[in-house]
């Protein structure tokens, strides 16, 4: 089962490496450099899990999170924070993020969270289908 993942972060090197590391694990991952880019990408494709950096120039992670929750309520979001920062992570959780990870994150840990987020998304989707 392929998990459709979108990574949103303004750090080029970080995004590039993450894409490679997911790739080597045979996981498809798209990337966006900003909130706008991410929202644009979402229109083209339905993502299961979005990994979202909190602090970005332009639209900040929490704003993007709100928009994502509005447009794709089923998509799970994992907040990636490097800032002062537990606070932002918690705030993200309150806004409906699945979890948060502190930078620098342990890759396996992140991977684990992505999988779990995906499982929940699937469960939610199934529940919704049955409800409908």
């Amino acid at each position, binding site marked *: 089962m392929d998990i459709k993942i979108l990574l949103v972060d303004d750090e080029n090197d970080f995004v590039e490496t993450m894409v490679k590391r997911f790739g080597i694990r045979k996981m498809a991952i798209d990337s966006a450099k900003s909130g706008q880019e991410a929202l644009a990408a979402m229109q083209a494709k339905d993502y299961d899990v979005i990994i979202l950096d909190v*602090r970005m120039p332009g639209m900040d992670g929490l704003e993007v999170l709100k928009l994502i929750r509005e447009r794709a309520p089923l998509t799970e979001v994992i907040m990636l924070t490097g800032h002062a*920062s537990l606070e932002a992570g918690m705030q993200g959780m309150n806004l409906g993020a699945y979890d948060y990870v502190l930078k*620098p994150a342990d890759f396996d840990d992140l991977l684990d969270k992505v999988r779990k987020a995906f499982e929940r998304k699937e469960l939610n989707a199934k529940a919704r289908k049955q409800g409908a």
Partner: protein
Amino acid sequence: MLENSGYTRLRVKMILTTLAFSLIPLLILGYTIYRQFEISHTNKILQNLNHITENKRRTLDLFLNERLSQLTAIAYTHRLEYFREPETFERVFTLLQARSKYYIDLGIIDQDGNHVLYTGPYQSIRTANYKDQEWFHQVQAKGIYISDVFLGLRNYPHFIIAVLRREGNKSWILRATIDSDIFDSLVQSDQLGAGGDAFLLNAENILQSKPRFGAKLLGKMNLGDFSRFPGVRSEMIEVDGKQYLFGLAWLENKNWLVAIRDDPTEELMPLKRTRYLVWAILAGGLLLIAGGTVLTSTTIISQLIRSEREKASLNASLTQSSKMASLGKMAAGVAHEVNNPLAIIKEKAGWMRDLLTEEDVKASPNFKEFEDAITKIEHHVNRAKDVTHRLLGFARRMDPIQEDININEVLAQTVTFLENEARYRAIEINTSFQKDLPFIASDSAQLQQVFLNIIDNAIDAIGKDGSITIRTQAAHSADEILISISDTGPGISKEKLDKIFDPFFTTKKVGEGTGLGLTISFSIIQKLGGRITVESQEGQGATFLINLPLRKA
């Protein structure tokens, strides 16, 4: 905060001001009362003196008037021929003496100055002729005459009163001699004090009566020159080098001055006593006021010093708090900026580790080196991450929870974590907990972190062999508890003491401590509404004092 000399100056100023404001009215009051008393007392003395003087003058005038009237009556009721009859003149004299013993003798002198008749003890003057004497002419001119006191032919102090009688174209003089001792008894009086005196003076300041002190009868008593004045006068006059108060009055019938002398030292005795009393009361008041002032100012100044000290320590803790807040912000910023590159390094290393699984790389002769390098990179990234995460922990504002906790239990539990480490280093941990310590509403997990930090630091400071003493007690103010953690380590120098709560300040070797432990402890205690301070002297260990409120305000 004021310097010590500043406090002394302030204190002196306070004392002087208070003294001035209380003593000036006191002195004015004392002086006014004394002055009023002095005036009324002096007035009373003068009044009394004037009264006596006036009385004496009246008595003397009355006496002289009586003598004059008696003699005038005798002279004018009978002709000269009548007195010439045998025994008659003697009878008249005896009659006079019966009324007044002070008559010494009585004589009649004709217009030529011859003694015509005489009765009295001095028969030798019977034949005397007075034609050329001053008094004879005066009596011829004025009709009556009163002499000054003199010794005369009789060689005994006396004075004479003479009355002129005209019979047709002839005239004769009735002359009586009177013992001047009468004046002594008339002038002297019980009303005068022990040092008082009274006497009569003629116009030349010759004494006409015997004073109690000093000069003799007919001696000179120089009171100065007083021309006749009406009524009574009081004067301060110096006699024999001493000031006396005199009441003076001229007689109406004769040019004699009644002088009543008061000893001012005696009369002013009550005044003197009053003055001593006033001084004593003033001195007592002064002592009382001065004592009160010193006491009050000491209390006020010590209170001032205390409040200044409290203010200073409050300022210090406020400075520390604001320093912490800005450092917290900076730390958070730095942590964030460092976290992003750390994340990239970590992912790059992770990517390299991913690639190591490729077959061809595994075959590389340097495979082991690569793997080793990656492990090291990951290890040190993690180390850096620990630092940044702790920094973020220091900066973050997590609301502490409130639960009822027993600090003694929290401490005891904390000690168990470190017991093994301490035992291994031969460090004894003593506890002295107040048994009935009140529970406090606080966050036990966060407090435990603080205690762990401090005790761990203490163990590190001691190194080997020593002891740590942990005490708890309810503070005097009753709404605080006090925890003290002392160690027998090397102590902390004064410069280091100022920086001990600053972030990244550490005395430990590089890599062993982050320098954040006490910083975090400080901010935790502060968030819990308490205070943490440290007391230490080099070579004498260190004591951390933590005050915690029973309930956060």
